[in-house]
């Protein structure tokens, strides 16, 4: 069997971070909210499992893989493939194999194992934006975010052993009738999950012919904070768990948790180090990698933990996490029905942000039969140009407080791309000072419209500041 490797890794986190203790304080009267410290990452209203997974996958898919797996327990569509949408958003050939992995938080690592046991180039992207009710421990414990790995025959992190255990341990569950997680007693979960996770890790070590002492870094997803110490004690592992750091800094990212934690572990690994990754949920997947050199993307992904902007308004947190249904007024009743025939016609260019270059070199979006270039007077076929990876500058901007948006204000304006294209578009990840003429922007894949009446959403790209600020006191 050929060697299989992780050749690149990436993460994506939304802009906002809420301090868990401060959030709990807002619920002090109720005694609810949990006592865990640290912060959780909070997705913008226009982000979901797909948009975040796409953002992470962008980093590891500059060249098309042969296969793309989207892993999530919180994908918005239950009948419509997230992976197929991601193919268009990433502008990948529609001929690649795709798959959607779901059903447990283990979906990300299970897909990785399949890729590691398979052949060809794979990208596995995991994203989560899990709903949890305010007051539940999960509301503050969960975080929103994504991670992606590229797997193939060559790469800096070679698989040396793995194991997988299926175990129907119900620590939490969600159903169609009860979509928010229902959690069982924490002491029971910690004790039992530690046994399951330890057993899987032992099997992986055995498969690799290694002892626990050989591990230089670990990334083991915990079902609850403070599960790791029992596992570490049972196995005799002394190195810290990168997943604990992820949990503390940005939250439990569900299917993306072991992937982002693995990136953090890789970021600090030295050549020759052995790194353990484990995903938990209805069992456990464990993988051990030998690192031969720097894993591309790992340091950038680890650095994400220090970025962000503090979210200090608890009611806005409730709104962004689907826990506060405000009366937004008649303007929010705007009809946003999408027709499938229109999506079929234009969706690929919209999701992939593909414009066109005319015969004189001007780039425009969207493509049209007659080019916008005034020097041309007849119809012509335009050559595809992807704008998603281009940067630009703001020509005009406003913060619109009249137009409905679930998270005011509605920032939008005209963006001049460096390649000559210009597009009137929405802005996102608003900096404290807002957007101004001349600001540099990059493109982010986001939710464009939400049809609340029919439970449908559309996606497009939005302009965001090029750089993320470092989290103050981070």
């Amino acid at each position, binding site marked *: 069997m050929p060697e299989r490797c992780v050749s690149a890794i990436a993460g994506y986190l939304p802009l906002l971070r809420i301090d868990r203790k401060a959030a709990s304080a807002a619920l002090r009267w109720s005694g609810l909210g949990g006592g865990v410290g640290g912060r959780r990452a909070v997705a913008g209203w226009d982000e979901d499992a797909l948009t975040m997974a796409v953002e992470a996958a962008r980093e590891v898919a500059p060249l098309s893989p042969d296969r793309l797996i989207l892993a999530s327990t919180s994908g918005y569509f239950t009948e419509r493939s997230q992976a197929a949408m991601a193919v268009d958003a990433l502008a990948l050939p529609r001929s690649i194999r795709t798959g959607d992995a779901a059903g447990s938080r283990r979906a990300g690592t299970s897909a990785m194992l399949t890729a590691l046991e398979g052949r060809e180039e794979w990208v596995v992207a995991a994203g989560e934006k899990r709903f949890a009710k305010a007051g539940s421990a999960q509301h503050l414990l969960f975080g929103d975010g994504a991670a992606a790995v590229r797997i193939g025959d060559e790469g800096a992190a070679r698989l040396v052993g793995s194991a997988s255990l299926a175990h129907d341990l119900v620590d939490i569950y969600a159903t169609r009738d009860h979509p928010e997680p229902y959690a069982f007693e924490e002491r029971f979960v910690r004790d039992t999950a530690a046994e399951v996770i330890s057993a899987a890790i032992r099997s992986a070590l055995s498969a690799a012919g290694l002892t626990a002492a050989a591990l230089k870094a670990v990334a083991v997803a915990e079902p609850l904070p403070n599960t790791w110490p029992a596992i570490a004690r049972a196995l005799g592992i002394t190195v810290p768990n990168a997943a604990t750091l992820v949990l503390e800094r940005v939250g439990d990212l569900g299917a993306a948790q072991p992937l982002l934690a693995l990136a953090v572990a890789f970021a600090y690994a030295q050549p020759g180090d052995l790194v353990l990754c484990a995903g938990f949920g209805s069992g456990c997947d464990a993988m051990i990698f030998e690192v031969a050199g720097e894993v591309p993307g790992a340091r950038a992904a680890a650095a994400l933990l220090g970025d962000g902007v503090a979210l200090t308004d608890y009611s806005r947190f409730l709104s962004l996490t689907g826990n506060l249904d405000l009366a937004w*007024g*008649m*303007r929010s009743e*705007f*009809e*946003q029905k*999408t*027709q499938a025939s*229109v*999506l079929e*016609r*234009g*969706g690929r260019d*919209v999701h992939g942000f593909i414009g066109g270059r005319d015969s004189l070199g*001007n780039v*425009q*979006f*969207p493509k*049209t039969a007659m080019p*916008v*270039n*005034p020097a041309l007077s007849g119809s012509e076929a335009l050559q595809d140009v992807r704008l998603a990876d281009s940067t630009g500058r703001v*020509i*005009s*901007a*406003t*913060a*619109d*407080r*009249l*137009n*409905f948006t679930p998270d005011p*204000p*509605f920032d*939008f*304006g*005209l963006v*001049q791309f460096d390649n*000559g*294209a*210009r*597009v*009137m*578009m*929405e802005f996102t990840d608003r900096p404290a000072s*807002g957007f*101004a*003429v*001349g600001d540099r922007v990059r493109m982010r894949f986001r939710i*464009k*419209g939400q049809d609340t009446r029919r439970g449908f959403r*559309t996606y*497009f790209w939005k302009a965001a500041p090029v750089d993320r600020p470092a989290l103050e006191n981070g």
Partner: protein
Amino acid sequence: MMASGIRDKVAILGMGCTAFGEHWSRGADDLMVEAFEEAIVDAGIGREDIGAAWVGNALDDINVGNSALPLAHALRLQTIPVTRVENMCATGTEALRAASYAVAAGAVDIALALGVEKLKDTGYGGLPLKTKGLFNDLWMPYGSAPGTFAQLAGAYAARHGIDAGDLKRAMAHVSWKSHQNGALNAKAHLRKPVDMDKILGAPMIADPLGLFDCCGVSDGAACAIVTTPEIAASLGRQDPVLVKAIQLSASNGWELGFGEWDGSYVRNTRVAAARAYAEAGVSDPRREIALTEVHDCFSVTELVTMEDLGLSDEGRAPFDILDGRFDRGGAQPCQIDGGLKCFGHPVGASGLRMAYEVYTQLLGRAGDRQRDGVRLGLTHNLGGAPFNSVAAVSILGRG
């Protein structure tokens, strides 16, 4: 080859305009009838003398109804050709343009142009929300009208190196002046003067436009009856108000999609104005045009329009505004009737309302707000957004 245009080929025989405002007790048909009856009495003709009619209605198909039939029904027009036109906020001028073309072409002797909008049944302030087309909705922002025009301000300030605070004060003066004027107009929607501090301190609608930088929307109708100067003379009008020019320019996507425009001006206004001045034979608009009624949907729009019409040098409009050049008693008053800001903005009627004020001034009928020696007046009617617009410029005059 330059077309000869319609200068002096069309006379306005009569005009009418309802009060603009929140007509809770009146429907679109009531408003159409009122504007029409004022115009037909003014024209001194009978309904049966009208050979063709155009109705402008921009936004609310639910309330007025689509097609031209609501006008035919409201006025009980007797099987003459009636057509609806729509070109966003430039709709009113579009109706007048169509009627004028019909007369100038000799297709009919007398034509009717009527604009109407019944916006106050939407249930909320501002314009009703509309799809931009099913494909465009997949990518175009659903920005509000103030959101689209607000972007002029930042781009203008960046281009001319003007301090945002100075620009905000000039914008506030635009609104202050229109409130002063609206207070004197019995047909205006908003009739209260407002002081500068209140304007500057108002809640933000779309940065940097505050509440008083924005016109509201209204119910209302305005109407013109046009004919040839010869027929006007035969009806006893020896020195009628004449159409000197009506010109229109429409975006083709250049501003939005081609990398030349800097967002600080409205190209279509410049193009339409240049054509209108040529058609009317105006070589020095600052001297020859006695007054203007421009599309002040937002204060910054009026500010930029002063330059786009050539009435201020580029980068100088804020200073001309603060100097009072466009005030009621200034050298070249703008919005002497209160403008969109205070007379009101029933979208499809607004272009004809502007013409109504110029017509009234040209005939010396403007009472307390009458200017002396008005021989030429200009209307500017702008639809859409700065980056995707229809601009209409018309010049009316006598002699």
